[in-house]
């Protein structure tokens, strides 16, 4: 088996996701006035706030997708991180943050080790892991939401900075930037894409495949937990069961951001664009004061559409049509 051509995930590669984000931003500004509503700077502030939490889940999930795996437990580790932070961060939010993120990183590393060591199907093993994390979260939280009494932390995290950002969103942006730099300026990104592109060949070529897979799951759980901590501290509430919405958001954001379903493709910039696009879409419906089910309807449809769009049949058809177009260019005949 040959290693597929690996690509850098620079800004240029994710131009379509970026254009989509820009398009949504224009729609959010231009369309609501037609129906008697109006978007404001606060709309974009809210979109960034959502991206700060859910986008981090997408970033974590995306890392496992790039190495050719899938972490179904991200929504559960998101809830677990938030619950641990609230339960143990009463005295000091830093302690809560460290326990929340640290415990989930260990949890993710264990899942990753199992996947890497025995070649277990990651969707199956993380389904079990998802139930375990959800069980621990529910047990800690007595099967209900838990409030966080240190409201100052929420105020600090949500306080608008130049009207658009907050400490919460800036933290998320910093994490996206860190992953972007790690993937583009170090060997790690190349190793991850090589692992996703062709595992056995990568192993033969000296890539530390097992360590990369294990680490990706650790990072996935850690990033999802950080999203959960930011959400719990920011809203002063930790939820026991987040449902499937965070997972739906994360998967759709990754696919919109150009992360390949077969591994080896994608990066932090694309995932950031995908997350922001979805967050803007949600804000668009909020601005129009649409019912909650309209947003679910659109999100569900989008997930199906992008999943089918990234399916082997569509990709094959697209590649064939591109190859036909390339070969159909007329060659000037020699006189």
């Amino acid at each position, binding site marked *: 088996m040959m290693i597929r051509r690996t690509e850098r995930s620079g800004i240029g590669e994710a131009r379509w996701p970026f254009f989509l984000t820009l398009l949504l931003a224009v729609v959010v500004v231009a369309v609501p006035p037609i129906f008697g509503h109006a978007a404001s700077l606060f709309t974009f502030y809210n979109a960034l706030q959502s991206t700060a939490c859910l986008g981090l889940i997408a970033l974590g999930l995306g890392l496992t997708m790039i190495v050719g795996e899938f972490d179904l437990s991200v929504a559960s580790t998101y809830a677990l991180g938030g619950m641990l932070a609230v339960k143990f961060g009463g005295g000091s939010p830093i302690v809560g943050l460290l326990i929340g993120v640290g415990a989930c990183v260990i949890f993710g590393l264990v899942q990753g080790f199992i996947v890497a060591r025995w*070649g277990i199907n990651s969707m199956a093993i993380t389904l079990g892991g998802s139930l375990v994390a959800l069980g621990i979260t529910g047990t800690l939280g007595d099967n209900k939401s838990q409030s966080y009494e240190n409201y100052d932390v929420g105020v600090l995290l949500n306080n608008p900075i130049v009207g658009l950002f907050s400490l919460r969103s800036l933290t998320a942006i910093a994490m996206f930037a860190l992953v972007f730099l790690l993937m583009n300026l170090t060997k790690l990104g190349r190793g991850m894409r090589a692992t996703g592109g062709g595992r056995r060949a990568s192993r033969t070529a000296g890539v530390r495949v097992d360590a990369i897979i294990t680490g990706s799951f650790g990072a996935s759980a850690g990033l999802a937990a950080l999203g959960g901590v930011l959400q719990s501290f920011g809203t002063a509430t930790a939820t026991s069961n987040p449902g499937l919405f965070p997972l739906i958001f994360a998967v759709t954001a990754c696919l919109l951001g150009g992360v390949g379903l077969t591994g080896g493709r994608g990066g932090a910039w694309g995932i950031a664009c995908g997350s922001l696009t979805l967050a803007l879409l949600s804000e668009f419906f909020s601005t129009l004061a649409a019912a909650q*089910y309209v947003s679910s309807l659109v999100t569900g449809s989008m997930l199906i559409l992008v999943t089918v769009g990234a399916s*082997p*049949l569509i990709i094959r058809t697209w590649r064939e049509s591109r190859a036909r177009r390339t070969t159909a260019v007329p060659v000037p005949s020699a006189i």
Partner: protein
Amino acid sequence: MSTATVTPVTAVTPKARRSTSSRITLGVTIAAIVVLIIGTLTTDGFYSLANGKAILNAATIVGIIAIGMTYVVISGNLFSLSVGVTAAVCAMTFLWALNYGMVAAIVITLAFGAIVIGLQGLLVGTTGANPIMVTIGAGALQEAVATWVSAGVSVYPPEGANYAWLAAPLFGIPFPVYVFIAMTIIGELVLKRSRFGRSLFLMGESPRAGRASGLSIATLTTGAFVVLGLCTAAAGILIGAFNQSGTLTATGTLTVDSISAVLVGGTAVIGGRGSVLRTAIGALVVSAIEDLLLIRGFSTPVQLLVLGLIVSAVVVLSQINSGRSNR
């Protein structure tokens, strides 16, 4: 994605497969007996006729859906993560359709379940799209449409509708238990004796070999999902009849329970191996464990935690045992 890259590392001979299958059957049976012994020795009230009926009742709904899920897993399409929502929507559909009489209500609900889940199978089968993502998206869609159509309120049957017998005892045993037993027998026969069932095994074992031998992956995948749809609709009918009202929140942990039953029953998560009969035993084991934890005062999260540990252990052991990995 690992689903696409799973390849057999070593050739698994039919004899080895039979041996693995026997070991799994033995393992599931031992697990069931161990749960029963521990429950009986440590928990007051566990070994009683009333509790036995409660376990059987719980296993019935989970088991009926798990029968359909077995077909999907064996076909190599992992599992569906939206059967809980579909079962709830089917319960609502059934109670509403009782306006047109019992037979029409059953037919409409079965057709609804088969179409909704069959369409997901068609999408997966024709394009090769990831089944987990398609089913999650379809779940969100169903939830949204059901909320829209029902205006977010519970659905009740029409006054005077005669449907209670569907949940009532017959010769001392609840009617759904007969449905479960009948569906288990039919499900096992179709899977093991029909051409459709044998083709599913071949496709799950190796889609490439299946395609080379002339199998239509799209038709078979759609067929497996249609079976899941029919089973989910049947469960929805029984849920509606039991609850006498239909809401989206009526099915709780049904999705993970049914997947757990299939995996505990020893069906290989990467496809190509499994049995409806063992799934039925798996459903009984899962229900007995949940019942045991409930009697001992443990909450739903603890049940999820234990279920998660069991699922993880079964997946690891089953895949190591099968000699197939994507390393």
